[in-house]
């Protein structure tokens, strides 16, 4: 045992730190999710001159707990003729994909506490990020693409026409808006020269967060619209559309399975806001560079503001009709994103810093590739 630990000590420490981070982020998200359900109903209430939930606890703050307990004790229903396996799998798929995509989002640089300094565990500095992937942005794109299956399977497995229509609408909507979403990232990736989210924030720091924000503003607008469609928020919540589809894909779900679907939806919303905060708003960089220090709190403030914007939009913008949704996605948003990509790459080619062509790597890659093709 001693020997085993000796050989794998590095691995064991890495695994321990990773598990610790996962535990912290998992529970933090759980808390943020329940808080978001409360904040959303409260803010919506105030915006519509209502009160919102205010009975449980001071200002109704215990409402999420009450909802959770209620859902726990509800009866689990399964509709007749449902696809049993997929009916169970759908909420699980939805929730897992929602959580996994947050693994690559950085919340800050190395953890530095005031009055304490750099925090390290077993001689390792703690980075506020679970996995620093080279393909971070693409990874999130991939996992979001898988996330649609949670909704599609939920719609199919329920054996109900409303749920099926909800699932169909959702898949059509998501792959229509995924294109614009992906294209809105291109200019950011081009300016940063990397898919790594940490590098993108570093590029924003080099350029000054405000310059970065203004430079990427059109992409930011396109991103926020496409992201709202991607996470099925109003005005793009046609998969749910309660006036026409009752509740869309989750109409047959009850009890904790319903709670899981709901949770996946909110966590997806948190993910897209966290991503926007990192890519467009400079993440944990302070908005007044040099005056206020950089801190993970800035990241959370920006993220919460974007979440507030989503609630704000829900309170003010009516739902699209289905043909309007498709028209807007394919005829307005995607062309706008394409024009921005062409414009931005043109500007980068003419005015961007000239980098020396990477001759050394070209020569090393070409012979190696030659071997493969033989």
């Amino acid at each position, binding site marked *: 045992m001693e020997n085993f630990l000796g050989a794998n000590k590095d691995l064991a420490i890495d695994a321990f730190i990773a598990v610790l981070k996962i535990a912290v982020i998992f529970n933090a998200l759980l808390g943020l999710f329940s808080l978001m359900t409360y904040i959303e109903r409260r803010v919506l209430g105030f915006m519509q001159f209502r009160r919102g939930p205010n009975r449980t606890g001071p200002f109704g703050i215990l409402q999420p707990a009450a909802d959770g307990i209620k859902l726990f004790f509800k009866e689990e229903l399964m509709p007749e003729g449902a696809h049993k396996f997929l009916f169970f799998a759908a909420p699980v798929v939805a929730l897992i994909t929602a959580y996994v995509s947050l693994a690559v989002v950085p919340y800050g640089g190395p953890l530095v506490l005031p009055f304490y300094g750099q925090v390290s565990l077993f001689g390792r500095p703690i980075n506020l990020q679970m996995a620093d992937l080279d393909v971070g942005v693409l990874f999130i*794109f991939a996992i979001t693409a898988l996330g*649609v299956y949670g909704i599609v399977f939920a719609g199919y497995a329920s054996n109900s026409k409303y749920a099926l229509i909800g*699932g169909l609408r959702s898949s059509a909507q998501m792959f229509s808006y995924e294109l614009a979403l992906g294209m809105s990232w291109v200019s950011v990736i081009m300016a940063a020269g990397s898919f790594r989210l940490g590098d993108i924030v570093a590029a924003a720091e080099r350029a000054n967060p405000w310059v970065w924000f203004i430079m990427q503003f059109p992409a930011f607008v396109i991103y926020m619209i496409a992201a709202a469609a991607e996470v099925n928020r109003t005005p793009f919540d046609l998969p749910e559309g309660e006036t026409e589809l009752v509740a869309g894909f989750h109409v047959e779900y009850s009890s904790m399975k319903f709670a899981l679907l709901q949770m996946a939806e909110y966590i997806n919303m948190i993910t897209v806001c966290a991503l926007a905060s990192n890519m467009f708003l400079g993440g944990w960089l302070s908005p007044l560079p040099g005056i206020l220090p950089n801190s993970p709190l800035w990241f959370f403030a920006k993220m919460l503001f974007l979440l507030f914007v989503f609630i704000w939009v829900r309170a003010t913008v009516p739902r699209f009709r289905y043909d309007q949704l498709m028209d807007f996605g394919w005829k307005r948003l995607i062309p706008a994103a394409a024009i921005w990509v062409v414009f931005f790459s043109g500007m980068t080619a003419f005015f961007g810093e000239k980098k020396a062509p990477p001759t050394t790597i070209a020569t090393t890659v070409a012979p190696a590739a030659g071997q493969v093709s033989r």
Partner: protein
Amino acid sequence: MILDVILFYGAAIVALASGISVISQRNPINSAFSLIVTMCSLAVMFAMLGSGFIAVLQVVVYAGAIMVLFLFVIMLLNAKQDEGDRAGGIGRAAVFLGIILAVQSVMVVTKGAQTLPEKHAVTVSADVARGLFSSPRFLYAFEATSILILSAMVGAIVVARKEKGK
């Protein structure tokens, strides 16, 4: 390393089992679900080979985009069970191609490289980009492929339009 071994065999078993499930299921939705699982476990394999970029592309393109379209069509047509005509000409062609593929894979295993090179480099996405774009060797092929895809897209639209006009 023990972790690699567990990951490899885990992904391999899942890929094989779900691959068999794709062709043995009667409900097309189950087949589609199995195919998604296969694609994802293949992505795990790519990631283990040190190519995170290819792994992510595998998920984005195959497990994400293509399978969503598949599912969309299956759900739109509401294909419930297969009609039992799977042993037609396509079935025979599939058996024929399967035998060729099996022979080829046996030959690859016996004659080709049996192990990975000890130090297979981790490929970062920037390397992929440089390999593709900084030497003309792959650049023309890449651009030609994009024109091919574009013409396929235009072709699909033309075919769809014709049907509408009739």
